[in-house]
C-alpha cells in the first residue's frame, strides 16, 4: 500500500522520461521493417557526415569543458583564496547562478552583438586598434566561436560546483604542511591538487556532457549549418533528412551513450571526493 504514494512519480517518470528514451534506444537497433539490426549503429561510424558531426560535437564539448573548467577554477580560487573583499565572492556566486542559466537563444544574440560582424568589440577593434578581425579570418560563426560562447555558461557552472570543494580545503592543512617544512608549492603539489583533482575532473566531464546536449545556442547562431549532433538530430526530426528514421534513433542513442558514460564518471568522481572530504 505504501507504493501508492510514489506511484504518480514513477508513472510520470516511466511515461515521460524512461519509456520515450527506451523507445528510441530500441528503435536504434531496428530497421524500417522492425527487425533487429546493428546497421544503424554501424552507420554512425560509416557515414562521413554523421561521423563528422560527432567529431565536431566532441571537439566543441571537450574544449568548452576544459577551458571552462580551467578558467572557472582560476576564478573560484581567486574569489575563495585570493584575499579579495567579501563582496567579490558573493557577487560572483550570484552572477554565476544567473549566467549558468542564461544559455540558449539570447546568449547567441549577445555574442553576435559583441563579436559579430557589426558587434561592439569588432567595431572597437577596428576603430581603436585598426584591427579588422573579420578581415584577418576571424568569424564568430564557427566551432571555435561557439566554444567561446559556451564558456559563458560553462565557467559559471564550474565556479558553482568547485567553490565548495575549495572551501573544504582546511586552513590547518596548509599550516600543518608549513610546520612540516613544506613550501607553498610542495603543499599544492602534494595535498591541494590531489584533493581537488577528483572534483575538478568530475566537473570537466559534467561540463562536457552539458555542452554535448546543448542545441539552442548553436541553432540561433548558425541555423542548421553548424554540423553538431544535436542540430543533425533536429534537422532529422524536422524533415527526415537522413531518409531513415531509425538512423535518427541511432543518432539519439549515440548521444545518450556519450552523455550517460560522462555522467557515470562524474558521479564516480564525486563519490570519491566526498568520501575524502568528510
Amino acid at each position, binding site marked *: 500500500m505504501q507504493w501508492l504514494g510514489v506511484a504518480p512519480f514513477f508513472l510520470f517518470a516511466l511515461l515521460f522520461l524512461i519509456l520515450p528514451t527506451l523507445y528510441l534506444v530500441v528503435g536504434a537497433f531496428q530497421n524500417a521493417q522492425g527487425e533487429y539490426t546493428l546497421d544503424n549503429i554501424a552507420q554512425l561510424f560509416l557515414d562521413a557526415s554523421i561521423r563528422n558531426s560527432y567529431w565536431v560535437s566532441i571537439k566543441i564539448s571537450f574544449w568548452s569543458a576544459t577551458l571552462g573548467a580551467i578558467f572557472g577554477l582560476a576564478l573560484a580560487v581567486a574569489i575563495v583564496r585570493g584575499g579579495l573583499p567579501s563582496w567579490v565572492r558573493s557577487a560572483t556566486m550570484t552572477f554565476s547562478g544567473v549566467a549558468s542559466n542564461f544559455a540558449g537563444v539570447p546568449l547567441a544574440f549577445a555574442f553576435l552583438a559583441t563579436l559579430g560582424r557589426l558587434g561592439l568589440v569588432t567595431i572597437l577593434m577596428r576603430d581603436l586598434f585598426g584591427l579588422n578581425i573579420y578581415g584577418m579570418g576571424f568569424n564568430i560563426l564557427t566551432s571555435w566561436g561557439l566554444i567561446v560562447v559556451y564558456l559563458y555558461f560553462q565557467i559559471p557552472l564550474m565556479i558553482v560546483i568547485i567553490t565548495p570543494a575549495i572551501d573544504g580545503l*582546511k586552513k*590547518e*592543512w596548509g*599550516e*600543518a*604542511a*608549513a*610546520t*612540516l*617544512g*613544506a*613550501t607553498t608549492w*610542495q603543499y599544492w603539489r*602534494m*595535498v591541494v591538487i*590531489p*584533493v581537488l583533482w577528483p572534483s575538478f575532473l568530475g566537473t570537466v566531464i559534467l561540463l562536457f556532457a552539458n555542452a554535448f546536449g546543448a542545441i539552442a545556442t548553436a541553432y540561433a547562431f548558425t541555423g542548421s549549418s553548424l554540423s553538431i549532433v544535436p542540430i543533425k538530430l533536429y534537422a532529422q526530426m524536422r524533415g527526415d533528412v537522413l531518409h531513415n528514421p531509425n538512423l535518427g534513433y541511432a543518432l539519439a542513442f549515440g548521444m545518450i551513450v556519450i552523455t550517460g558514460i560522462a555522467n557515470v564518471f562524474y558521479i564516480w568522481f564525486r563519490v570519491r571526493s566526498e*568520501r*575524502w*572530504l*568528510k
Partner: protein
Amino acid sequence: MADTFLSIQNLRKSFGTTTVVQDFNLDVSTGEFVSFLGPSGCGKTTVLRMVAGFEQPSAGAISVGGKDVTRLKPNQRNIGMVFQAYALFPNLTVAQNVAFGLKVAGVPKAEMDKRVAEMLSLIKLPEFGDRYPYQLSGGQQQRVALARALAPRPKLLLLDEPLSALDAKVRVSLRDEIRSIQRNLGITTIFVTHDQEEALSISDRIVVMYGGKAEQVGTPYEIYNRPATKFVANFVGTLNVLEGVVSDASAGKVKVDTQEIVVGNKLNGSRNGDAVSLALRPEAIALGPRPGHDAELGGRISEVHFLGSVIRIRVGFGKGMISLDTFNNSSTPPPVVGDQASISFSSNDLLVLH
C-alpha cells in the same frame, strides 16, 4: 637547572587598535612541558601561533635553541605542531601522512620507512599505515597527527588544544599518552588548553593567561595553592569566596557577616573598614573543629548531597555559602539539612583576594 631552550621576550601583538597579547615573557627549559591555560580570547593561541610563525609579533623576540627565529617562516623553524582539528591530509594514507615532513626534506626511502614504522609503534597504531584518515576515529587521527609532527624530529613541539574535539574518555587517556611520549623523547613542548584539569595533570609548569597577559607562571602545585591573582584563583580549581570587612587590621581580623575570624598576617596594606574577599579551597574546610584549624565559622546546613563515597555539603552563613566535601563514614550518618553546623579551617589556607 636545565638550559633555556625557548625564550620569549616582551612579546606583543596588536591588530589595529586592539592589543591581544602584551608583555609576554617566558623561558622554557629543554625537555620541559609547559601549558598555556586560559579562557577563550585570552591570547594563548596567538602566542603559540607566533612561536610557530603563523603570526608576526608587533614587538618582541622569540628564540629557539639560542637562535632568533622571530623573522623566520613557519617552514624554516623545525617545529612540530598538532592542531585541534587534526588536519591530516585526506588524500594520503596514515603512513604517507607521517612521512610527509621526511618526504619534503628529501630523506631517503629506507630511512623514511624505518622512521614511519618507529612513529606508528610509538603511538601504538603499527597496523594502520595503509588506512586513510576518514577511516579513523578522532582519537586515532590525533595520534597520527602527533606522529606526523614528531617524525622529522623537531626540537620544539606545539599543541593547540589538541584534545578539545575529542570525547571525555579519549581526552583523558590521550593526554597521558602525549605526556609519556613527550617524556620519552625529551622534547620541549608547549600545550595550549582551556581545560584546567588537563593543564594541572600533565604540565611541568603552567602559564595562566587572561586578557593577553600572563597572570601567573608556576608549577601546578604553585598555581593551585598560591594563586597570584583573583582570576587565577577562580579559574583554577573550585573556590569558595567569602566577602568580609576588615575589622582590626593590626590583629588580622576580618568580620564575615556577623562573625569574626582571624586571617593572620595576610592583610598587607588593608585598613579597617576595607572590603576584602577570602577564598578557600573545598578540601581545606572541615565540618566541625579539627586540630590545627584555627578559624571557625558557624552556620546552617542548607544542602546535603550524598554521592556515595563523597558527601557534598553546602553551609550557609547569612548571605554567604560554603561548599565542602567530606568522605562517607559508615559509622557516622550525614548531617541533616537545617541543622546548625560549624566549619573550621586553618588561616594558612585562606587566600585573601584583592
